[in-house]
């Protein structure tokens, strides 16, 4: 079901636990162990979330001694940015519709000698 290529950035951050992990990592890089301390879930469950975040490009995992350290990565966030851009397009589309409605209205009024 989960293929690294098809992981959608939004599906990845749709999970509250994963969002909480990203928030913690936005303050500092943390080892998987210290991240796990903040969550009431099994260590394998935490590891699974971490793996998903890493596959979607939100974090990198680096071995430091015995610990595995997680650091935020830009790629996943770029995907989210694309979405904001998408919303930008939404407004652009709506407002250009408004513009054409208003322009048509003006033309009609001119026709009727107003």
């Amino acid at each position, binding site marked *: 079901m989960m293929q690294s290529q098809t992981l959608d950035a*939004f599906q990845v*951050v*749709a*999970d*509250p636990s994963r*969002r909480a992990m*990203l*928030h913690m990592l936005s303050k500092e890089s943390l080892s998987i162990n210290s991240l796990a301390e903040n969550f009431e879930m099994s260590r394998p469950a935490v590891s699974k979330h971490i793996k998903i975040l890493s596959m979607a490009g939100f974090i990198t995992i680096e071995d430091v001694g015995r610990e595995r350290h997680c650091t935020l990565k830009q790629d996943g*966030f770029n995907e*989210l*940015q694309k*979405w*904001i851009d*998408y*919303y*930008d*397009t*939404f*407004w*652009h*589309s*709506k*407002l*250009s*519709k*408004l*513009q054409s*409605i*208003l*322009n048509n*209205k*003006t033309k009609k009024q001119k026709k009727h000698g107003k």
Partner: protein
Amino acid sequence: MLHKEIKQNWFFKQAPKIVWDYLTKPELIEQWLGKSDFKPVVGHKFSFISSCGNDSICEVLEVKPFTKLVYSWQKNSATDGKPFTSKIMWTLIAKDNGTELQLVHNGFITIEDVTAHEAGWNHCHKQFEELLKTN
């Protein structure tokens, strides 16, 4: 990091009063943005009825007739039902025998906001694409 704000400037050949009507009269709003029970009264709670069943719950925050209109824009996240709010601010400036209309859509402060918004729009994705094609 993320750009957290959408800003657009549009020029209309019509006077601010006419543009204002299209921002504040439900029958005119519906023509370009969507069905709603909007009233230009501070504190008025209204919604944009979505054809995808994901309505936006809004509240009027500021009304300066023909000049400025601000409302909150809230959706419930499709994934965890947690509400989030963004803010839409319209500013009208009389200019060159017409109106400059500024739109600022912000309040996407956290990743949660960005996510929840997207989750809602995901359902509308297809319809939105259709709309873009027809325009």
